[in-house]
């Protein structure tokens, strides 16, 4: 009787076992690549967890962002306060709300050594609200300016270079308000001569209210985010109060005849900061995200975010953007040319948007509701 060999001729038993083991181990070796991605929750304005910003980080770190988008700082605070600790791993906040996050204990302390702070422009290394008692709680990641948004067919840049243009008779019924009191009243506070637009006494606040009321007959509507886009895009509104390049920049890139200008009375600055949520079980990964988005590469992405563009505080981010998309760097004033974004801040033409210092926030909001209904 002839025995059939169990192994193919020429393949020794040891080699067979090694090959078999290697084959069996292959799925284990590639397991990392096929493992379910780790979910990282992000509380942010719309756009921050969209593929144009996060896809690269997600692929490199096998992460999947689960965004919860809010529609304003108050909405953000409400969502955090009504959620158990650890619900949100990463929190994006407007700068004026960062202090409230710190005081309520909603965010973790951050180690400044973990981040490329030395690459930041000096003005942003100790950004207001990011630090408390020498401890870092959030990191400014992008900012933008608010001025006069205008239709370039209806107004010249020179005409739009003052907030007084809102009272122009040819704009009656064609001036829109972004429906939030802080940027609108801040801009009109600058117009009434308040160098620090949110640090005004009762007399100045009364004067601001009078000035604002005098604008009411010019107003064509009060718009949310979507309404602001559509009314500017279709020419329904020819000038807008309370916004800036974060809206007109998107429209301009898509061919709409709109632009923003910082008027002679000065402009406001909005800023967005990233924090790590208190009680996050993925704090290391959250830290990695903040490191990424504040690095030169991440900053260039953030500057070009599809939802709304922004200026970034990292100098190396400017350089990365200039190399990657020089036209956008120039459009947003992130170049070495005189009159760039930092020069405007250094010349004192820009004031931070913030909560009123001498009045209750509710007083400003109540006036805004009264103004709308008047």
């Amino acid at each position, binding site marked *: 009787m002839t025995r059939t060999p169990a192994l193919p001729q020429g393949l020794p038993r040891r080699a067979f076992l090694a090959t078999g083991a290697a084959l069996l181990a292959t799925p284990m070796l590639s397991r990392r690549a096929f493992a379910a991605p780790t979910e990282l929750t992000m509380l942010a304005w719309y756009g921050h967890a969209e593929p144009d910003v996060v896809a690269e980080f997600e692929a490199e770190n096998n992460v999947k962002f689960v965004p919860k988008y809010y529609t304003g700082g108050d*909405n953000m605070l409400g969502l955090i*306060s009504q959620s158990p600790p650890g619900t949100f791993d990463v929190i994006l906040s407007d700068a004026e709300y960062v202090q409230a996050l710190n005081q309520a204990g909603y965010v973790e302390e951050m180690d400044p050594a973990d981040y490329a702070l030395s690459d930041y422009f000096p003005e942003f290394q100790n950004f207001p609200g990011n630090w408390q008692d020498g401890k870092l709680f959030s990191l400014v990641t992008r900012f933008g300016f608010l001025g006069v948004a205008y239709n370039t067919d209806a107004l010249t840049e020179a005409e739009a270079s003052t907030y007084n243009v809102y009272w122009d008779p040819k704009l009656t019924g064609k001036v829109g308000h972004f*429906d939030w009191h802080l940027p609108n009243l801040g801009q009109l506070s600058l117009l009434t001569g308040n160098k620090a637009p949110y640090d005004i006494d009762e007399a100045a606040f009364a004067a601001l209210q009078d000035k604002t009321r005098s604008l009411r007959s010019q107003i064509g509507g009060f*718009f949310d985010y979507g309404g602001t886009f*559509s009314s500017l895009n279709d020419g*329904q509104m020819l000038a807008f109060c309370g916004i800036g390049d974060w809206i007109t920049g998107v429209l301009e890139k898509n061919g709409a005849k709109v632009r923003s200008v910082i008027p002679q009375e000065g402009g406001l600055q909005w800023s967005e900061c990233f924090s790590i949520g208190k009680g996050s079980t993925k704090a290391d990964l959250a830290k990695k995200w903040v490191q990424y988005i504040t690095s030169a590469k991440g900053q260039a992405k953030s500057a070009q975010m599809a939802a709304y563009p922004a200026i970034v505080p990292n100098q190396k981010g400017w350089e990365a953007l200039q190399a990657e998309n020089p036209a956008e760097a120039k459009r947003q004033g992130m170049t070495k040319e005189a009159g760039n974004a930092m020069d405007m801040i250094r010349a004192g033409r820009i004031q931070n948007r913030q909560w009123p210092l001498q009045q209750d*926030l509710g007083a400003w909001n109540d006036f805004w*509701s009264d103004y709308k209904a008047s």
Partner: protein
Amino acid sequence: MRRMPSLYGLTFSLPLLAWQLLFFVFPLVFLVALSFWTVKNFTMQPGFDPVNWVTMFARPVFWQAYGTTLALATMAALVTSALALPCAYAVAFKLSPKGQRWAIFLMVIPFFTSYLVRVYSWQIFLSDAGIINVLLGRLGLGPFHLLNTVFATLVGYLTLCLPLVVLLQLFSLIFIDRTLIEAAHNLRCGRLRTVFEVVIPAGRVGLVIAALFAFILSFGDFVSPIYLGGGDPTTLSILITDTTKSGQQWPRAAVIALTMIATLMVVAFAAIRFAYKGRAK
């Protein structure tokens, strides 16, 4: 002597009771409780403080928005009913049964599309450079300022309510006893007079209920006043969002919402009382 409800009866009535308790009574009770809470540092604090009621009712803007909303909803109910009636009448009395089925089908179709999308599409028609003004421009008219006006808000309300009001009116008119109409004609009553003296009184319940639905839907609508009216003038639904947007004042928003619910209940009871007034039990 009252009989105990049978198991058969309970089987059919209990789900309705459970539904009403879960989705109407409990949320309403919570809303009432919420209106007495306070807000500190953006966080709601349970308690029993009437401050929100006092604050809201003392604000002129609240009563201004209340008056505006009441007027707009009343106008929407009247205009919608007036526009819907000829349509419902024609379908009920002039079309064959097959034509009626097609008409009902066509009136259900708008509900397949999101109301928000329909309202957004109106912007394309109503804007200064929109379709209506372009067409009027060819006739040498305009441009007229249509978008971000009360007129545009009413167009939105019509978009929301008209198909439903036509359907409700139709189901009312379709079941009117035709012999009454024939009798009116035999007595030499003209067509128009027959409509006002026979058809409308006979279909009063359905017509009033249809108008009531238009009022209820318009009174609470947020989409049309914002996206077609440009948020101007302020309605109660806009005031609710304004109140919650700043400082997380949900308790104050609850006061507005409860006032709206109370108003709707009063209007609904009054409308139903009027609809059934003088009818045999």
